[in-house]
């Protein structure tokens, strides 16, 4: 359908279509706007940005935290990318990751606690994936069998996951030896991932980068990826060329759940050791945004994940050092994303 001309930002838009100008704009505009916000609130702009940079690059621990969060974000961004490529929007990485973490914590603390590491660690990863897949599976079932919009379903499922986990942590799963804190028992020590460099960095980052590369290879080079891209490009044409569109969509969605679940598993095995309320909170949402920033490209998502991880670590530092709420950093993050959405090219689906 044809409509009247969109808001005319003609020359500017054309200038911004140059890749370098675009990257520059998407960095500078948000930083400048956020700076103005800080200034009007009487905060020192330079000091705040110094705190942010220092938090990320200034200390070994800080940088380690960025890498740890990058790990989760790569997985949760893949959880958004795969469904997007088959024409679906999974906004449920948050809930899928949380349920993955819950499954891992339960299994690692009870059923699998006596397994030796080399067996137990893969088994726990599978538990995390299973958790994510179950949560994603409910949403894709609702879509396929009941015709429900998967974006709305997954958003609602995020809230349900949060309260469901809280209910369990304040109830049946509460560690009896945990001084009444709402948390599960700790998973067995041999099931924990080893950390390196005196930080909390673990092998998860390697797994995440490899997974992202694998997804890229799958999409770009293989027949399965060709099928997926055909569905993303024109689902009717895919149907008419004999592709089982629904089945591929369901599988992509389940794979997305597994990816988010892996983030949850690594959260427990690498960093937390046990499930707590709010463990890994917002990592699923942020992954969705990391995917959006790079137009759902799995390789670029590694970098956008790093960027968002850095900003989120910076947000915590900002709260401590400048008294601004940590959520303020979301303004900066979202300004980046909004600038990209508002200036990027129209055609962004494969």
């Amino acid at each position, binding site marked *: 359908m044809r409509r009247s001309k969109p808001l005319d930002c003609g020359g500017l838009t054309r200038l911004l279509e140059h890749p370098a100008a675009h990257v520059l704009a998407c960095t500078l505009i948000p930083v400048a706007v956020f700076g103005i916000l800080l200034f009007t609130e009487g905060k020192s702009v330079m000091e705040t940005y110094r705190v942010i940079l220092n938090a990320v690059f200034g200390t070994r621990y800080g940088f380690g935290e960025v890498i740890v969060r990058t790990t989760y974000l790569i997985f949760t961004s893949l959880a958004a990318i795969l469904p997007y490529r088959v024409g679906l929007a999974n906004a449920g990485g948050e809930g899928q990751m949380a349920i993955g973490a819950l499954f891992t914590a339960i299994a690692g603390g009870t059923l699998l606690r006596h397994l030796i590491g080399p067996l137990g660690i893969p088994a726990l990863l599978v538990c995390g994936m299973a958790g994510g897949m179950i949560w994603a599976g409910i949403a894709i079932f609702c879509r396929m069998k009941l015709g429900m919009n998967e974006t709305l379903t997954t958003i609602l499922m995020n809230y349900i996951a949060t309260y469901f986990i809280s209910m369990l942590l304040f109830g049946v799963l509460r560690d009896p030896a945990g001084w009444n804190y709402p948390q599960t028992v700790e998973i067995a020590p041999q099931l924990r991932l080893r950390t390196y460099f005196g930080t909390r960095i673990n092998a998860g980052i390697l797994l995440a980068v490899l997974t992202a590369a694998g997804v890229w290879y799958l999409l770009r*080079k*293989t*027949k399965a990826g*060709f099928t997926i*891209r*055909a569905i993303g*490009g*024109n689902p*009717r*044409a*895919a*149907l*008419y*060329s*004999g*592709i*089982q569109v629904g089945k591929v969509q369901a599988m992509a969605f389940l794979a997305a759940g597994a990816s988010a679940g892996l983030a949850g598993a690594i959260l427990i095995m690498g960093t937390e050791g046990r499930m707590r309320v709010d463990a890994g909170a917002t990592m699923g949402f942020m992954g969705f945004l990391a995917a959006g920033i790079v137009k759902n490209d799995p390789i670029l998502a590694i970098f956008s994940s790093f960027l968002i991880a850095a900003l989120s670590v910076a947000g915590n530092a900002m709260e401590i050092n400048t008294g601004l709420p940590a959520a303020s950093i979301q303004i900066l993050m979202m300004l980046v994303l909004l600038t990209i959405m508002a200036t990027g090219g129209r*055609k962004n*689906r*494969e």
Partner: protein
Amino acid sequence: MGKTIMRVRGLTKVFGSLTANDHIDLDIEAGRIHAIAGENGAGKSTLMKMLYGVYPATEGTIIVDETPVNGWNPALARENGVSMVFQDFRLIPAFTVLENVFLSLTGRRYVINRKDLRHRIRALSETYQLNVEPDQEVWKLDLGQRQHIEIIKALINPNTRMLIFDEPTSVLAPHEIARFLDMLLQFRADGYAVLLITHKIHEITTVADQITILRQGKKVCAINREDGFDQAAIIAGMLGEQTMEEAPEKPAAREFPQLPGIALRAVTVRDDHNREILQNVNMELARGRIMGIAGISGNGQRELTEAIFGARKISGGHLSYGGEDITHTSPGQRIRHGFRMVTEDPLHDNVVESFTVLQNMALAGLDVTTTHGRIDWEDLRQRLAERPEMEAMKVPAGDRLAGTLSGGNVQRMTFARAVISQPSLLLACYPSRGLDVATVAEVHRTLLRLRDAGTAIVLVSEDLPELFAMSDSLTVLAGHQALGPFIPSDCDIQELGKLMLKGDGGNAAEQTP
């Protein structure tokens, strides 16, 4: 002779490198029917859209009531009494007739007065014998009825004095056409200026007072009824020097008893609104035979072909392939049986626009090979280059993005893709639509070659001569039924046309409350 409502001088429209209209002059007078005749693509629709203000003219002037107009647009046109009945109706299916009419009203009417509007619609319906109930939802109505709503929308505006009809009879069944032409005469008698765009000679010579013939964007000639209409001269004017390609010599069909055939037994198919559009269809699609599907469009052609291909559920009966029941199999499974389909809207149904031509050729065309899971595109490119179909169909270069192709090129690509794998069954919906004469001939040759190699072909077309020339047997879709098979050599076009009507009449009767 009536008062001149609109004069057009030197009207020109250029789209990129194409000059769609080249310095056209016209005079449109009240109480006369002015026909604009020309082949498809002669520039008739472009001209009408400029007269109605949809397209701004590249050059030239439109003069209304002796005053040249500026910034001509549809709203201004309606204000000046120019109304258009579009070929693709401007209706919202989810709304009722009354709501659609209300939306079209100009002037300061912000709240619906249903009672008054209902009254006015009924009054117009009676005057011109239109078959329209104000409170019906539009999606339940057939195309003829929808055209009546469009006419009411034009007439309900008290300013209206000039009516533009864009190929109005293309959506009508033949028995409706006669009634429609009567209606045009009634408009003329009531003093309206009527502008009729058509390529059908019969309509022109029946009702027109004046004919303007367009060819390739240029005005060829204008003839008045007083000067007498010469059918041959009109046809010559429309076609120019070009001679019609002779239908290919059709060799006798061969038998392929060893190859599995396709059979439909008591098949029922539902349309998008879940109504049974075809009931109890029985059909044998033998290998090495072309089955032509005739019928007024919208009588289940799309639904039937989709159901045979597996893209639509068969809601009753059975479909078999060589004795095996495949009623509930997916398109993928049927593609593995060698079924291929070119739909009526290939860009929408068959093409991934973000893929290159080469990538599109891999979608149910030739299978891709993989080494270590990796697709070998170079191999596909080479194998395609060896195929004569690619050359014969003039398929565009492999690296072009499908989204940048013209409609004709998309048609070429999808047709070549469907035939390249020697299908067991080819469902070809309007395969020659939008193609030049030479390529149409190539399409016909390819269909015959496939037939003689043992493919069962279902050919859906609106073009009865094409169907008669190509088909070994014909099925007519009408009135929720598949009638036939008929052998083209044993029946004549007139009789088949009547059959198409008979069913359609039943259809219309059923939908009238």
